């Protein structure tokens, strides 16, 4: 009888205890799996979100966080200059503002507004109606479903909005817009009202006439690194950042808490797993001391007897670890829904994101735990004094 078969028969001779042990390891493994998904979930999700928009470099006037920093002047000229660089495929200036959507004289929603001329790619997806154009009068406005629901109107109607582009400006006057479409915006959260119009429309609504932008959205032609270098050469006064750099910045700043929480909880779950396996195996060994001593007397080497214990530990962890995956995945979906209910979290972002590396790390950590947890009971078996144990068993 080979080592695996022998260990599995030894393990399942106490089916109740073994089943409880496996369930315990499955629970610990599920939590560990979730913590691994959480540790990089936001980063991966945020990167996917940035990449999904189609722009891989953003250019600002300073290195302050995006958006909301110092605006870039003469944005049209800067965009035109950069668009001529062969490393860049498309450059689109983008300006943000805040608006108050009105029904009659009454404000019904605060709206996050974007002024952006739609090019080959745009950070929104039309789900009803049509996209922006420069010909519609009053100017075209595309909004999200949340704002549409708040307004309680239909496409093609005209609505009024007070647009505020600067804190220094006096109370803005209401400006009419034509609702032309409904779109999904990737950074929207559940309750956010969002709208987008052309940059010239936003400039008019702001009433300042300034050709400025929060940033230039850039799509590179030959990779973001080359685009970055080209922009730096052409306009050393501007600050280009790639999606990777933004993600890296978020990783060391905004998402650190989740990584830390994940690390702490992972460590705790591993300690629980370690203790659980150690206790199970040690109890099992102590109950079978006479039997183990007899096997040693019959010629089992210390290494072989210890291997039996190790394989039992490995079997517990392997079965529990495999069970942990579907449990952990289901749990992660549930936890993700809870966390995404927090205000300000874009609906298309996720806290728990599956990556193959999480699976590998999960397996590696559980294997390491099994090895460490088996060490003490293996040592007990390997050092078992055969004659004394046999004598004690008879006396006992």
């Amino acid at each position, binding site marked *: *009888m080979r080592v695996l078969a022998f260990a599995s*028969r030894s393990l399942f001779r106490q089916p109740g205890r073994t089943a409880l042990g496996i369930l315990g390891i499955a629970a610990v493994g599920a939590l560990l799996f979730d913590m691994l998904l959480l540790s990089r979930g936001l980063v991966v999700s945020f990167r996917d979100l940035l990449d999904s928009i189609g722009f891989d470099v953003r250019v600002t006037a300073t290195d302050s966080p995006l958006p909301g920093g110092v605006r870039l002047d003469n944005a049209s000229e800067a965009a035109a200059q950069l668009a001529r660089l062969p490393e860049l495929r498309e450059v689109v200036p983008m300006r943000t503002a805040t608006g108050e959507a009105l029904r009659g004289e009454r404000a019904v929603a605060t709206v996050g507004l974007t002024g952006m001329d739609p090019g080959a790619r745009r950070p929104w997806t039309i789900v009803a109606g049509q996209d922006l154009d420069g010909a519609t009068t009053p100017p075209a406005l595309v909004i999200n479903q949340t704002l549409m629901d708040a307004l309680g109107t239909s496409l093609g109607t005209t609505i009024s909005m007070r647009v505020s582009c600067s804190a220094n400006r006096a109370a803005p006057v209401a400006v009419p817009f034509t609702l032309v479409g409904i779109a999904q915006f990737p950074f929207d959260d559940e309750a956010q009202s969002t709208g987008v119009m052309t940059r010239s429309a936003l400039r008019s609504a702001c009433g300042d006439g300034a050709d400025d932008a929060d940033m230039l959205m850039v799509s590179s032609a030959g990779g973001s690194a080359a685009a970055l270098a080209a922009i730096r050469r052409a306009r050393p006064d501007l600050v280009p950042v790639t999606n990777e750099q933004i993600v890296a910045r978020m990783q060391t700043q905004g998402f650190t808490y989740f990584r830390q929480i994940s690390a702490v909880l992972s460590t705790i779950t591993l300690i629980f797993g370690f203790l659980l396996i150690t206790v199970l195996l040690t109890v099992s060994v102590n109950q079978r001391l006479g039997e183990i001593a007899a*096997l040693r007397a*019959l010629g089992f080497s210390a290494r072989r007897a210890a291997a039996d214990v190790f394989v039992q530990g490995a079997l517990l962890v392997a079965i529990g670890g495999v069970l942990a995956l579907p449990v952990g995945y289901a749990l992660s979906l549930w936890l993700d829904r809870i966390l995404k209910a927090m205000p300000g979290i874009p609906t298309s972002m996720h806290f728990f994101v599956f990556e193959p590396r999480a699976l590998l790390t999960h397996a590696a950590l559980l294997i390491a735990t099994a090895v460490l947890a088996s060490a003490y009971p293996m040592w007990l078996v390997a050092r078992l004094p055969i004659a004394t144990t*046999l004598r004690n068993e*008879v006396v006992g």
Partner: protein
Amino acid sequence: MTPLIEARTLGKVFPMGGGPVHALRDISLQMCAGEYLTIRGPSGCGKSTLLHILGCVDTPTSGSLLFDSRDVGSLADAERSEIRLRSIGFVFQRFFLLPMLTAAENVDVPQAEAGVPKADRRRRTMELLEYVGLAHRADHRPSQLSGGEAQRVAIARALANRPRLLLADEPTGELDRANGEHIAELLDRVQSDGTAVVVVTHDGALAERAPRRLLMRDGRIEQEEFRR
């Protein structure tokens, strides 16, 4: 003839709280292949300690043991395990059959450990179960066997790798008279088939069956008898 076992002035001291306990004192003994030896004596006289040292599961504090001319004291633990696996069979008072395995699987375990091919193991296992009269119980678990049957399976297991020496520690200690008699007859047969047998027992009738008998007291061989 070269002795199978040669014990030279064996001593064994157990360090205990109340001072060292001398379990064996100056035991010298030779045993040849195929011999049958029983050891008797009161509890605590050192019988089982001597058996354990002869079976290479314990080491003497002083003196030396040669097994098949090899100095056991100079061997590593793994080498002693190898000797036990291939050359020595153990029978215990409490059988120590593995409860999760059938009778046949219990007999199979030492053979598998010795690397015997599966087909040969199966053949040998059935041969041994027939030898101990339990072929019809091959698929039964120890919990389904009587004490006598369990001890017969344990003897079959001890013989699995064709050992040159069979050691039995109180093999009838947990059996009634009839089952004890069966086991005694089985041990006679094992010895007559060429395996050296050493039995530690309190059972006078069992001890008397051996041609060579030791009586131990206070860690020493007090008396050695040979049947004429």
